[in-house]
């Protein structure tokens, strides 16, 4: 059993604090993704779990015990690095078996485990090659193989896909998910790519500036972002965020256009409150081109500035109160720039954030 617990973990470099007291419980066999923009402390946090970075304050536990003072080799974890870090002077077989050899396992066990890992990852043909003779995707697989042969308590992934081209990245993403379903183990995965986070995670941890902003399942984080940062970071294209003021039962934009306050949020706002109105492009759709009927919908007439057809849908750029807003047209037809369309707004999926704090009015 390996749950991982971070208790008020702090990292300082000299006087500069970069991770500010992180609390996180990761359950046994859970796939947790730390996601955030670069410099948010996600990699540092992962490296503290691995033991590659000292913990300035707080505790990290893997399984039952605190591991703060244990070197990486005693934590029974394995890690996949962004640049793979394969040993160039060893064959794939030696790379895979290196950890077992260091642990003084006998030859038969090493061979069996290496073959098992090679089997899972389809590396059988490549065992005698050196890393230099492998493609990017193959190197990535060897790095994962090296992680699984040791049957560790937890896998740590540090942006493992960011060196691959777009197509291979999608393919390897699927392989990582399959791998996790096959070898059930706790996984902590760091990425700056919110699509990777959404697709892989059991739970997403959104980080910013050394703080955790929100922890939740992909759907929770997507549907109920706690603040404007999470709202804009998760989801592509990002959520439209438009400053507005509450006037009675209306959300009034800066140009005087208004929408009714979403029914479910009516008792969470007060008259005169400055807010930010959040709406995903999926919920701003031309009439007749939405995905799902909304029980609480409103309408706005908007000019289309630009359209980007993607096949199954077209992204429409329009503007609300002088700010760019993106909508989507499902089951699209051709749209010419300058065309005026009537948009359905799914108010039951709209968000309101306090303008001063950026926090969702639901979560305060």
């Amino acid at each position: 059993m390996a749950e991982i617990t971070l208790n008020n973990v702090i990292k300082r470099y000299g006087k500069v604090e970069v991770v500010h007291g992180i609390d996180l419980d990761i359950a046994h066999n859970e796939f947790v993704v730390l996601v955030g923009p670069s410099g948010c402390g996600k990699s540092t946090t992962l490296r503290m779990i691995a033991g590659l970075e000292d913990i300035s304050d707080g505790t990290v536990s893997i399984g039952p015990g605190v591991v703060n003072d244990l070197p990486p080799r005693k934590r029974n974890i394995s890690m996949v690095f962004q640049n793979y870090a394969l040993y160039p002077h060893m064959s794939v077989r030696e790379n895979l078996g290196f950890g077992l050899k260091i642990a003084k396992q006998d030859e038969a066990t090493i061979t069996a485990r290496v073959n098992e890992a090679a089997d899972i990852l389809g590396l059988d043909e490549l065992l005698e090659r050196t890393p230099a003779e492998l493609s990017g995707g193959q190197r990535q697989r060897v790095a994962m193989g090296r992680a699984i042969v040791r049957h560790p308590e937890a896998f740590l992934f540090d942006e493992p896909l960011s060196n691959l081209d777009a197509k291979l990245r999608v393919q390897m993403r699927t392989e990582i998910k399959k791998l996790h379903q096959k070898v059930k183990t706790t996984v902590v995965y760091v990425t700056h790519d919110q699509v990777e986070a959404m697709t892989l995670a059991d739970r997403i941890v959104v980080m910013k500036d050394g703080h955790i902003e929100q922890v939740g399942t992909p759907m929770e984080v997507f549907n109920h972002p706690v603040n404007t940062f999470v709202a804009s970071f998760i989801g592509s294209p990002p959520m439209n965020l438009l400053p507005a003021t509450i006037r009675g039962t209306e959300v009034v934009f800066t140009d005087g256009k208004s929408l009714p306050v979403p029914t479910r949020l009516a008792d969470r706002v007060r008259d005169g409150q400055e807010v930010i109105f959040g709406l995903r492009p999926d919920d701003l759709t031309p009439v007749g081109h939405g995905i799902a009927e909304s029980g609480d919908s409103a309408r706005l007439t908007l000019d289309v500035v630009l359209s980007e057809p993607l096949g199954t849908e077209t992204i429409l750029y329009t503007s609300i109160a002088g700010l760019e807003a993106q909508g989507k047209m499902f089951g699209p037809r051709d749209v010419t720039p300058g065309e005026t369309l009537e948009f359905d707004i799914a108010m039951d999926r709209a968000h309101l954030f306090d303008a001063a704090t950026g926090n969702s009015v639901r979560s305060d």
Partner: protein
Amino acid sequence: MMNGKLRKQIGAIATWVLTFILMVIICVPGLWVVLTAFRPNGEVLAKPPVWIPENPSLNNFAKIFGFGADQVAIPVPAYFANSLIIALTSTAIALLIGMSGGYAFARYRFRFKNGLFLGLMLSRTVPGIALSLPIFMIWSRIGLIDAKLGLIIVYVALNVPFTIWLIDGFFRQIPKEMSEAAQVDGCTRWQAFWKIEFPLAKSGIASAGIFAFLTSWNEYALASNLTRSTDSKTLPVGLMDFTAQFTIDWAGMSAMAVIIIIPALILTFLVQKHLIAGLTFGGVKG
């Protein structure tokens, strides 16, 4: 079409001729020394010069080892042993310090790191000979004149900045994730160094070793100041034994020079494989 091919051929020939001329300029003095080692002293100063020895013989070698009547033996075995001991010991120490220092500069953050590194490099800007008098005075006070240890210390000091600089560069090329991956894989920091980083930096360490060895093996100026007798005199200093007040035994000196060159050549050939491995290392990275 034909024209382009012709031009390419002319280019190749020109490159070849140029390379040949350069190699001649570099090699002829060495070749002259080797040829002279096999000819009698009289032929050395002949006018016009005699290129190929008319009666090549090993007489010069026999003479310096004390065989034959007309020459006082030069204690070549003692000089050779001194040179070997001093060069090997100082190279080993310089490599050890160079590896630790190079690794530290490449991997660790510490106070005054850049200043220290710059200081090491600046120490190379002082010509060794400028230090010979101060070293002589200090060494004579503490009794290190005419002692192998005295020369070993000097050569270590001479070589360490260079070995640190060269080895630091090689360790820098190895991503630090290699060592981290090894540590996660179960290695101690030392095992990670020894099993992963050291093999990858081996070619750099070998190059540093050759340079350090050749510096110590060939050094003359400081050694001539700090040595007196067969206790510590090295081969290059021993060359001066062939000069008397009015005569210089050029042939004997050349024979001795050949003896000095041979171990250096052997060592370079032995380590050459690693030097070439160092050049192809880039293809393995990633």
